[in-house]
């Protein structure tokens, strides 16, 4: 399985994603350039974190129009897997690969901290190596992470099991205190209706080794390999 990691101008987690996939997972990764129209045979596309195009105008709003994104959208429409992390989640929403939007944190401040995530759906191609209800420790680092969606959309997400991760406290409860950014219903990550696009604000690529404080993010990438093998 080959992962393609896109570098937009202003991406700053692209190298972290490449290393997570290559050194952490032991898979192949290829770097993709925003000005190109070629996914270079990548099976999975990662839209990494950062501040693409400076996040001017609105986070992710300009990146969706970049040349490579036209290929990513076509890839996703063919059912190809895409992971959007942090700024990548914002880009995926702007590109309508995922429903909803990410607003400024309710604190109006950037938040960099470890959060606890509860796995809400362990049957997706991104989470099959977790168990439902499992608690993960993964860092966040963002200023615009407050997930929101209209009431109908929220119901559709919940009914279809598209909510994949929620912010919870150490006992596993989705409390207001455990919500770092004011996201609707503590939602931290979702998948598309087709199940092939994942968007999440936390950074699994920063939780690959115990020496980083947690290796709970590795199983997300392992899940992709397991999905192909299955």
């Amino acid at each position: 399985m080959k992962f393609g990691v896109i570098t937009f101008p202003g991406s700053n987690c692209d190298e972290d994603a490449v290393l997570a996939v290559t050194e952490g997972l032991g898979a192949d990764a290829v770097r993709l350039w925003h000005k190109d129209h070629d996914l270079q045979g990548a099976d999975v596309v990662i839209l990494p974190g950062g501040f693409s195009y400076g996040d001017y105008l609105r986070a992710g709003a300009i990146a969706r129009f970049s040349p490579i994104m036209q290929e990513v959208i076509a890839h996703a429409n063919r059912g190809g897997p895409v992971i959007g992390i942090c700024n990548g989640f914002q880009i995926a929403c702007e590109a309508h690969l995922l429903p909803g939007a990410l607003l400024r944190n309710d604190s109006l401040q950037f938040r960099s901290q470890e959060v606890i995530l509860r796995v809400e759906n362990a049957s997706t191609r991104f989470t099959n190596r977790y168990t439902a209800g499992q608690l993960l420790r993964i860092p966040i680092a963002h200023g615009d992470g407050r997930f929101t969606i209209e009431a109908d959309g929220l119901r559709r997400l919940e009914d279809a099991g598209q909510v994949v991760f929620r912010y919870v406290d150490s006992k596993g409860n989705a409390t207001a205190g455990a919500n770092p950014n004011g996201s609707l219903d503590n939602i931290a990550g979702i998948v598309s209706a087709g199940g092939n696009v994942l968007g999440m604000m936390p950074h699994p690529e920063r939780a690959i080794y115990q020496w980083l404080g947690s290796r709970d993010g590795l199983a997300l990438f392992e899940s992709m390999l397991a999905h192909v093998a299955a």
Partner: protein
Amino acid sequence: MGATPRPGDPVITPALVAEHGLTPDEYTRLERMLGRTPTFTELGIISALWSEHCSYKHSRPVLRTLPTKAPWVLQGPGENAGVISVGDGLAVAFKIESHNHPSAVEPYQGAATGVGGILRDVFTMGARPVAMLNSLRFGALDSARVRWLVSGVVKGIGDYGNCVGIPTVAGEVVFDPAYEGNPLVNAMCVGVLQEKDLIRAKAQGVGNPVIAVGARTGRDGIHGASFASEDLTEASEAKRPRVQVGDPFTEKLLLEASLELITSGHIVAIQDMGAAGLTSSSAEMAERGDVGVTIDTTLVPVRETGMTPYEILLSESQERMLVVAKKGHEDHVRAILEKWDLVAAVIGEVIAEPVYRVTEGDHVVAEFPGSRLVTDCPVYTPDAAEGADVQRLRAEDVHAIPEKAEESDPLWTLRQLLSSPTIASKRWITRQYDSTVRASTMLGPGDADAAVIRLKGTNKGLAVKTDCNGRYVYLEPRVGGRIAVAECARNIACTGARPMAITNCLNFGNPKRPEVFFQFREAVAGMGEACTALDTPVTGGNVSFYNESPLGAVFPTPTIGMVGLLECADDVVQGAFRTPGDAILLLGTPTAELGASEYLSRIHGRTTGAPPACNLAHERALVDCLVEAAAARVLSSAHDCSDGGLAVALAESAMMRREAAVGADIDLSAFASLPVRALLFGEAQGRAVVSSPNPDAVAALAARHGVPVHRIGTVGASGGSFSITVGSHRWSTGVETIADAWHDAIPSLMARVAISSDDAAPAAAGSA
């Protein structure tokens, strides 16, 4: 020959000269160097280059006394950043710099551009930035204006570093009324490079093109360097336009493009256009290379029309670099810049003739002989004399200061100290900084005394820290200078890393005042002694004078930025007690010292007494002992004793990880002969609190290094009680009560409604 005025240039008058910050003597010196009256453009150039900020004219002779050499030092002072070897062909570049004056009048942009500037200093050496640190000083948080400054500075640092994608992992923040009118904002950057990619900012090769790279030049920040070289006054607010405006997105592109340029082999030198912009970058590169240079300002890409050579030369527009490329490689350079959507323009060339020449088209508007532009700068050695008031304070018998009634319960005093903003958790600040990007942070903010990042591709770890206790330096500059280095080394060693080298940011008042120059000279002497004893040479730094406002001078604050090396990153030691049942040991010995303490400041509102003695042989032994103990893997935790003394160090060890707070049962009866408040809150140096499952091994190791070791307690249960026994007295409380005091202090202060630039404006207050 030589330069002639442009049409419309103002006539050079004594008033114009004074406005440019030159003394009559300095102006005479300039005329003698040129052999004629300078043009307006030349006056502007000299005003910038001979400003304190660029020329170090009051500090150079003193700085020369610092130790700068060691076998692992690849680049000492004089370049954009210092560089040390860390083995395996890898090197570390690092530097600290101040952005105090801009931050005082425009905290958000002032702090942001401080981060941007120090990043560029590091990546121009060919190093990829891997960590940022900040050393901040503010007045008391009771003031709405201080809260406005804190909010703005923190957001400025965060927004810039977060966007560029460099983790901000460590630093320190101190609050004291001494910084009320003049906050200090010092930013440090650490980068990693292959030794073979090290590049220096030295113009070479006659005929090689000089290329401006990055953002276009605008009218912002003109005379920023001169602004940084004068006291802050009521009029400083009006100089807000001298503060530059940063764009971290462009910086990120410039970072990638610059590193690509450096490894491409198409360039010979590169330098940040920082303070004094194009002027200082081009003059310094020419001086280092001992060559001439000519620049045509009409070729510089600008943001607006009608800019004069004077403005183009002195603009401090951000995110710009000056590059000397190999002749014939211009298109390759352009292609790399275009890839990153940036501009590159040939604006001049390296010439054999030993002159620094600026033209506007064909018209020569400035011409200086040889490299004398930089080297002919005047040097001063002002009078130095200690102030009588400080001598009086230092001589005070602090033990005679009566205790308050509440102090009969030392846990009350402890909670007061833990909630002092200088000591309290800084998480309200650090959670606004991305500390985990680059996926290499082993210990980040609040995890230990220093931050540790893993060096990719190796099994090594790099520890980084900044430190300085300005109160000590104020009360006894030489001792304070020593302690700044020693404390930094202790913090580095507590993580298990071997201290390697330092960079410094010397924040002082007006050097023309004898008591300030005395502080400067003595503090630097103390630093030098400590650097020699600890084998941590100085690789560069920055001097910031004129940190004075109508409220007075700041505490003299020679901030130390240190890097240390962990040969095996997995040996890393964190700061908090972890395992119930572990023995708690004190390395080093308590004393009756209480002077210059946070205790006297917080509880009694007094800055007084002599700071604790600093025995450098003891400090060295403690550092060696901690490093060896980490490598022997006998420590569960290590945390040094500094602000607030032993009791604060113990309390922090128990609850710095709030969700994993543990109890501790402490018995200090062996020291019952000391005054209790000195025992608990005195700041005797050369000490660290460690916990270990194997106290005998720690004791044996300490004995071998000649470090006194005392078993003083046992780590308790999760959420257990924190108790201290001294002889027949025993005080006990739930660990959560001390955790609340430490963790909630700054958030509750910052939650106060008013955050304002207008309330209690210090300039207005001082002008009454």
